[in-house]
């Protein structure tokens, strides 16, 4: 099963994660993305492919030369 189709639970609250809009802020810029989030404590799960892909590219684009 692909990672994005898995059902994840919060390790602390045991609640099933639900997709919510999450805001990322880096070097003065804020971006939104829908990510699995614990409805109880608000913890967010960031899939590895997102961290290594889009998030890493945004960091590279924003970091000054």
């Amino acid at each position, binding site marked *: 099963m692909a990672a994005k189709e898995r059902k994840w639970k919060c390790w602390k609250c045991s609640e099933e994660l639900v997709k919510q809009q999450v805001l*990322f802020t880096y*070097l*003065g*810029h*804020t*971006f*939104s*993305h829908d990510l699995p989030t614990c409805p109880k404590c608000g913890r967010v799960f960031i899939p590895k492919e997102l961290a290594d892909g*889009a*998030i890493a*590219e*945004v960091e590279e*684009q*924003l*970091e*000054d*030369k």
Partner: protein
Amino acid sequence: MRQIIRKTYSVCPVCLKRIPAAHVALDNKLYLEKNCPEHGSFSTIIWHGLRDLESWRGDLPEIAQGENENCPHGCGLCPEHQQDTCCVLLEVTKRCNLHCSFCFAEGGDGEDIPFTTVRNNLFTLADPGKTLVQLSGGEPTVRDDLPQIVAAAKEAGCQYVQLNTNGIRLAQDKEFVKDLVQAGLSFVFMQFDGIDDAVYRRLRGKDLFAIKKEAIENCASCNLGVTLVPTIVPGVNTGEIGRIIRFAVSHAPAVRGVHFQPVSFFGRIPALPSAEERFTLDQLLDVIEKQAGELVPQDSLLPSRCDHPLCGFHGDYIVMNDKTLYPLRQRDNCCCQPTSAEQNRAFVARRWQRPQAETSSDNLLKQEAKDLGEAEIETLEGFLHRIRSHSFTLTAMAFQDAGNLDLERLRRCSLHVFANDRFVPFCAYYLSKQA
């Protein structure tokens, strides 16, 4: 009150001998002052006090006695040089199809460099997978075998091949543009001094604005990014600066940015420069604010940190659908530390090269990128789509000549000319006597 605020070294503009020099503040302006035992005293304005110099320069150390003693006459690069090569310039011809009143390379009626020599030079200078080579001249496009030269650069392992051109042939010969792209040309630096033909008549000897537009169109149709390169000359085109920026933005994403070069006085120059004939970096910043302040937030133009801060600036943006500029960096959210030539090379290439996806059959991606508007850059995907396709830079390079050469600046230079098997900082290579 006259006050020495910094010591450095320069050259005598008459004999080019290395001599001590000082930054001298007077009436809120800054001058480079020096004395040649044989030819007397010289003073050149280097800052008009329109921006805070100390804040702009940061805490770089001044050049100390005993440092860089072979500079500039011992160049190629020596162990005391403080920056690696970001971009290497290779002259491929001395010929030119213009006869400009200002030309660093004194192009004109010379000859082409033999192809085998050019090819051998490319293989000697290339650091495979890394090198950014700028093919220059003369005017490189007068050579019919330029596509073969571009292919040789790629074969030698150059990661990026940049063309320095006046754009005339790119406008008149679309097949030639296609051949260059096919051979692996990455992006174009095109001389672009204004949107008024009077400027071109004055600087270049003929009307060229329509030709510049045609060249941009031909490059756009081949997905070849063009950065506009104005030489800014007081009394000629300082009034064009805001219009050049607006023209560039309105022709994005084919146009990737503007790279300003305040006039410098080496090579073929009309006469010895007076203070009024020079255009300092802080004057350029000030004029951009006055003429294009609604488009360019002043704190989005940051001092160069690959080269010396007094050698240039860079601003990094996304062009929005309504032709405004969204600044990616401002002085309060940048790291502001010196950067390596490799970092700088990766940055400029990311910005000046158009993404390959736009030429592919992936029309869906093209359409997605086109459709994303201002609101969409607030999402991760939307931001990445937009920055890949519509990034835009405003940069400047203030070249130095025998009048204002400051060895503190020269020792941080990352733009190097390759000649006689040596890498020579640009302003050292083209240094010429002014009398």
